[in-house]
Every structure is written in structure tokens, then in C-alpha cells.
């Protein structure tokens, strides 16, 4: 078996059906070929990566996206879409997606839903949303209803902490949607902040504002007055908010559904005309309050068995490094509260273990500013010392783990560490992580600051490395080629295959002199070398070398080289001058074989 056979098996995924003999031959080949062994190792490593389960809400989300897409296409050319979205991150424990949009009825006809529509929609308690017994029925904070102590807000110390907002602003927003988005968001945040003992597990909230009047086309600079009574009389707006909302296909009714037709979670559909006697902010606030009431979820059951089961859920998630930071934070947050409620020494010990593992992986300040503080009340002095020691001993490892998560939210904490941390290793690791986000303005500014003024030369150099131009110069590689004396074809080929192509990525800038230098090298060598070098250059698949190929096609004295070049150029027929060169070769080349090869390529349909 040779490399070509091994690669064919690898790339055609046929190894599952390999015969024993082929398998043995492959094993022997891999044992003696480092290149092929490397390819197999890479492939098997990727194949061994965990495959996540398909999200349960994928189908519902896609259905919703298709519905929105369908509606957008119906109103195309009639009215600009307004989609002002906001993502709320409530603590690391909750997020709500808000979308505000105008929708035109098909044909621009006015439409008013029947009053009975609203009754059919209502609110779907999350306990009915396929969550089984995990979450008990909703409770109302400060309701004072006694009853189940597990849902008594007075019995929990869970606090609602940070609120962050990311606003998504599409190009075709209009003023009304944006204003409503602003008002609604402010009102929702205000409502959430009023709830003292609340854990929210996120639910997406979609809100659609539908304008009924077909002739209402506000200019982009149009500003609505907050007093709705001043609005044009023919504007009629209804709202729907909740998870997995869709209309009935013609845009007149709303309900929360799953792909299977069941309820998906919380929802609220006003399905009522915009109250003309209520100013927009007040209405937004009322809607926000209603939604918050729906979102209030008591996470915690009363019995020890359920507490232990739930703790196991969140314990697992909290330790899952492949999960999002916010998800892990949510899980740890919940696990802590469950452990506190369970008041079970075993669960408490497991919580301490979980936090210790996290401490080895994630800087506490990033995960959750209060986690470590709370941990200190759970752990013994020795355990605290152990946790601190882990932080102190492996800051770089911790930061590398964060970098591996690829989460741009590390920019803030990493910037702090790079600018202010006293430990050189920590600053160095932070610089390397920030370097991954060097195209982000904040990260770049911090890197520039460190490159200019960090006390450590190592940190300055690392920071500076991420600020320099990405253009890769091949001089060093070419120097190696020159040093080899250009006499050992095999060695040169290996170098070209092994080194040149990796610098010729489409995404990289290629040194403008490189093509000339390589062309020069190719020109002054014998036929075998030229053929090998040209193929090696094409191994990189870069269009940067097309001028070299064209020049070879026109001027290389060897028909063999010119035929090789034709094969290469057939992949670049979309590039300028390639087809012209092919036509010239088909008509005028001195070699009949070259003319025939060129004609054959031209006959093939241009991809």
C-alpha cells in the first residue's frame, strides 16, 4: 500500500468496510509513513470528539425562522422590516431574546383578529412544557400564599445579579420598532430587578408588532410620540410574546407551539389591539410585568430525593468544559442553591468537589463573581487553601482552558489580567488569549498598551506579535531551499510540499515578492524539478501563483511541464487571462500533445 491508497481509504471513509488484508497493509503503511500516520491521527482525533445531542428546540426554532422568512418574503417590496432584538443575560442564569418586528398582511389588507383568538392562547406554565417533574409550578414572588415552602421566596437567598444587554440592530430597522424595543427592554429590566428571590432559566421571548394599515410607511427618521393617541388613526398593533410563537399561517392568530404541535413553554399573547389610552412605555411596562410573572420559576422541590437528582444534573453540567460559560455558571448557581437546600453533607462535599474542579479550569471572577465567595462559606480552610493553590500554580493553564472555549467574553477579564495582574505568567497567558481576539478593538487596544508598557519583555513581545501584519514572508523557507543547493530534488520537493504551501493560505496575505522569487527558482532548474515544484505550489491551492503558471504555459520549453500547467490552470478558469492562455495554447503551442490537452480543457464546461 502506498500513500495514495492510504489517503483514498481515509478520505473516502471506506475503512469501515476494509478487508482484513487491506487493514493489515494499511497498518504496515502507517507504521512506516509519518505523513499518513499524522493524517490518520488527526482524523481519528476529530472523530473521537464528543457529538452533542441535537437541541430539542431546533425544529421549533427553524419552523419559527421559516415562518418569519415566509412572511418577510410576502411583504418584500412593501415595507421595510423592523427587527430590533435584544438579548438579555440575566445573571448568568437567564436570557431572553426579544424581537420586535412589523409585519404586513399579504396583499396589504387590513386585518383585525377576532377577540376570541386571545382566549385560545393564554399562558403556558413551564411545568407543562415538557420538563417533567423537574420544575414545579410557577410561583409568584411575595405572594405570601404559604403552601409549599419550597416555593416560598422568603425561604431562598437566591439573588438576581447582573443584567446585560446586547442589542441587535439590523440595517432596515425603523423608528417605531426600535423605540418599542428600547422601552420594552427598559421596562423588562426594571421588572426583573424588582423580583428579590428569583432564578430564571431562560426562555426566548419573541414579540411581534404587526402594523395593519397598508398605507402606513413611516420614514426612517419618523419619531413616534409616546402618546399613542397622537398616532395615525389607522395604525393597529397587536403583540405576542413567548417561546416558540407562531401564527396560524395567515398571520391572524398566535400561539405557542412546538414542532409536534404541543406547547413549548411560556408564552403570552396580548392578541388585543394596542390600547389607545395607554402610552407606549406604560404598555411596554405592563407587558414586561406580565412576562416576568410568567417567568418566575421555582427551581427547587422539597423532597430530598428530587434535590439530589437535580443536583446531579447541574453538577454534571457545571463540570462540562465543552459547555458555554454561561451554561456552566447557571448550573453551578443552581447546584449551590440545591446543595444549600438539601443540607446533606454528601451533597455539600460534592458541591465543594465541583467548585474545586471549576477552580482548576476557570478563573472565579470570570465564571461568577460571587461563586468563590459563596464557596468560602462551604469549604474548610484547607479546601480553600487548596483552591487558592490551584489558581496560583496554574494560571496559564486556566487561561488556556478559557481560550479553548473560544468565547469572546473572555476579552474583558483577560484585559484586566493583562493590564493589572502582578504575575508575569498570568499576563503572558492573558496576552496570548487576547491575541486570538486581536481584531476586536478593545482587545487590540489592551494589547497595544501591553506591547508598549508591560514590565516584562516577554509579555511585551507576545502582545506585539499579535499586532503585527499577518503577511507571511517566505524568505526563510526560500533561504532553506537555496541553502540546499538546488541539487537534491527529493529534498526540495519535500521542503516545498512541507513548508511552502502552509504559507499560501487564501486568508493570509502573501508577500508580493514571493511569486517572483518562486518563479525565478522554477525557471532556473531542470524539467523534473520544475514539474515537481509547480505541483508543489499548486498543492497550496492558492490563486496567487496563477501568473507563474501562465508564464510557464507560454514560455516553458518542456511540453511535459506545459501539460502539467494546463492541468493546474484548469482549476483556475475563473481567474483573468486563464481561458485566453488556454485558447492560445490550443491554437498555437508547438506541441501537438499540449494543443490537444488545452483543447480538451476548453471543451469542458467552465465551472
Amino acid at each position, binding site marked *: 500500500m502506498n500513500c495514495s491508497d492510504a489517503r483514498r481509504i481515509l478520505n473516502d471513509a471506506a475503512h469501515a468496510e476494509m478487508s482484513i488484508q487491506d487493514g493489515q497493509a494499511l497498518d504496515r503503511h502507517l507504521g512506516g509513513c509519518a505523513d499518513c500516520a499524522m493524517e490518520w491521527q*488527526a482524523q481519528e482525533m476529530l472523530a473521537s470528539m464528543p457529538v452533542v445531542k441535537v*437541541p430539542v428546540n431546533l425544529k421549533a426554532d427553524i419552523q419559527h425562522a421559516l415562518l418569519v422568512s415566509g412572511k418577510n418574503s410576502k411583504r418584500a417590496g412593501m415595507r421595510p422590516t423592523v427587527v430590533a432584538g435584544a438579548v438579555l443575560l440575566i445573571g448568568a442564569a437567564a436570557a431572553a431574546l426579544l424581537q420586535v418586528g412589523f409585519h404586513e398582511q399579504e396583499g396589504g389588507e387590513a386585518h383585525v383578529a377576532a377577540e376570541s383568538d386571545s382566549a385560545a392562547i393564554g399562558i403556558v406554565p413551564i411545568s407543562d412544557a415538557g420538563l417533567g417533574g423537574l420544575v414545579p409550578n410557577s410561583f409568584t414572588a411575595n405572594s405570601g400564599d404559604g403552601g409549599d415552602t419550597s416555593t416560598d421566596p422568603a425561604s431562598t437567598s437566591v439573588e438576581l445579579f447582573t443584567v446585560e444587554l446586547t442589542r441587535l440592530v439590523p440595517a432596515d430597522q425603523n423608528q417605531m420598532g426600535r423605540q418599542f424595543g428600547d422601552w420594552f427592554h427598559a421596562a423588562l429590566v426594571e421588572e426583573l430587578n424588582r423580583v428579590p428571590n428569583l432564578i430564571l432559566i431562560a426562555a426566548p421571548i419573541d414579540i411581534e408588532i404587526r402594523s395593519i394599515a397598508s398605507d402606513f410607511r413611516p420614514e426612517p427618521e419618523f419619531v413616534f410620540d409616546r402618546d399613542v393617541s397622537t398616532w395615525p388613526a389607522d395604525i393597529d398593533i397587536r403583540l405576542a410574546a413567548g417561546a416558540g410563537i407562531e401564527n396560524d399561517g395567515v398571520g391572524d392568530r398566535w400561539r405557542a407551539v412546538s414542532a409536534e404541535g404541543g406547547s413549548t413553554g411560556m408564552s403570552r399573547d396580548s392578541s388585543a389591539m394596542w390600547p389607545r389610552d395607554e402610552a407606549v412605555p406604560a404598555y411596554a411596562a405592563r407587558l414586561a410585568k406580565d412576562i416576568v410573572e410568567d417567568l418566575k420559576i421555582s427551581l427547587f422541590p422539597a423532597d430530598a430525593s428530587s434535590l439530589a437528582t437535580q443536583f446531579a444534573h447541574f453538577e454534571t453540567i457545571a463540570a462540562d468544559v465543552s459547555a458555554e460559560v454561561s451554561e456552566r455558571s447557571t448550573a453551578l448557581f443552581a447546584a449551590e442553591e440545591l446543595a444549600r437546600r438539601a443540607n446533606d453533607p454528601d451533597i455539600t462535599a460534592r458541591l465543594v468537589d465541583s467548585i474545586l474542579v471549576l477552580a482548576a479550569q476557570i478563573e472565579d471572577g470570570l465564571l461568577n463573581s460571587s461563586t468563590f465567595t459563596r464557596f468560602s462559606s462551604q469549604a474548610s480552610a484547607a479546601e480553600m487553601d487548596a483552591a487558592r493553590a490551584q489558581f496560583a500554580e496554574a494560571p496559564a493553564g486556566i487561561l488556556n482552558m478559557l481560550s479553548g472555549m473560544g468565547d469572546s467574553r473572555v476579552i474583558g477579564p483577560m484585559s484586566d489580567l493583562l493590564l493589572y495582574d502582578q504575575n508575569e505568567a498570568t499576563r503572558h497567558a492573558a496576552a496570548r488569549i487576547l491575541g486570538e481576539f486581536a481584531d476586536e478593538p478593545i482587545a487590540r487596544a489592551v494589547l497595544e498598551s501591553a506591547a508598549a508598557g508591560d514590565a516584562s519583555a516577554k509579555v511585551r513581545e507576545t502582545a506585539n506579535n499579535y499586532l503585527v501584519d499577518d503577511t507571511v514572508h517566505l524568505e526563510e523557507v526560500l533561504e532553506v531551499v537555496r541553502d540546499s543547493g538546488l541539487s537534491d530534488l527529493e529534498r526540495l520537493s519535500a521542503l516545498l510540499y512541507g513548508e511552502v504551501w502552509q504559507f499560501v493560505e487564501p486568508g493570509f496575505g502573501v508577500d508580493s515578492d514571493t511569486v517572483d522569487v518562486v518563479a525565478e527558482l522554477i525557471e532556473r532548474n531542470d524539467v523534473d524539478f520544475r514539474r515537481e515544484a509547480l505541483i508543489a505550489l499548486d498543492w497550496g491551492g492558492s490563486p496567487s501563483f496563477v501568473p507563474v503558471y501562465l508564464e510557464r504555459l507560454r514560455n516553458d520549453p518542456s511540453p511535459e511541464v506545459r501539460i502539467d500547467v494546463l492541468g493546474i490552470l484548469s482549476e483556475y478558469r475563473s481567474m483573468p487571462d486563464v481561458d485566453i492562455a488556454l485558447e492560445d495554447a490550443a491554437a498555437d503551442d508547438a506541441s501537438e500533445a499540449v494543443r490537444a490537452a488545452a483543447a480538451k480543457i476548453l471543451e469542458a464546461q467552465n465551472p
Partner: protein
Amino acid sequence: MPDRNPKHFGREIEPYLDKLFHAAYRLTHDRADAQELVQDVCVRAFENHEQWAETSTPLGWLMRIQYNLFVDGVRRERRAKVVPLCEVEDRYLASGDRFDLESRTETSQRIARVQLAWRKLNRDQRALLALSVEGYTLAEMKEITGMSIEVLNARLYRARRSLMKNLEPENPDAESREKMEVRR
């Protein structure tokens, strides 16, 4: 006339969602980004439902859209992640057993290393490797990407090599020694 009803289209496309999501996750290594990518694919497919009605290889056609969206895609806005409780429950089935923290940490570290190396690949490389790991043959990948078999072979080789190189521990001294060896 192809059906323009989004609900009907959603049902037609449903059998392919799992495969699309798995490939998307291979591409992005991020659940939310994968979900968003699949959603974009479905919307794009719906916008071109005439072609959908005509294609004899629906999955290949969808994968081609996904490949193009990913390779050509503008950088996606990273958002705060939503954590639906129902998803949490689905992903992690209840287990009363205390899991092995040590082995879990090792596995997590390995995954993180691979993810870090993966992120350093360019989008083309990630896209090709994802298709390959998902079991697509070169002929299928040719249909999806429009590249020739030879180019695919070359690029897959380069991508795997880059991945392995990205996995090597940073050790400037070792790298210098290696270069000196080459020069000699």
C-alpha cells in the same frame, strides 16, 4: 409549483436536520452557533425552494448551502447564550452516580486542546475536515464544495497537518532546533 408554505417546507426538511446540526457542530464547535447556522441554512433553502423541489440529493444540496454559508459567512454576532431548561434536561440525563471528576477533567482538557487547535484553522479547512469526519466521501465533497478530487485531497492533507501542528505544545526552543535541523 413548489410548495411555498413554510410549515410544509419545515416538515420536508426535518429529516435532514440532525445531520445538518451534527455537521454544523463539527464546523463551529459551539451549540448555539451550530443551531444558528442550521437555521440560516433552512431559511436559505426555503428562499430557494424551487431548487429544493428539483434536487435529487436533498442532503447534499443542504450541505452545500451550509458549506457556503460557513465558508463565506460573515462573522456571527456572539450573543449571550440562552439556557433553556428543557434542553439542559435533555442533554444530561439524570444520574445518581457520582461521576469521576478526574477522568472528566482529563477529557475536558483534551477536548479544549482540540477545540483550541480547531479554532486556529481557517474556515475552509474547518469546513472540509468537518465534512470528512462526518463521513462524506470525496465524490460527495466534490459535489458540495465544487472542488476537484485532487484539490480536496491536497486541502484535507493541509488541514490535518495544520491541526496537528496547532496541537503541538508551544515550545520555541524545540521549534528553533527543528529549523536548525532543516538548515543542516
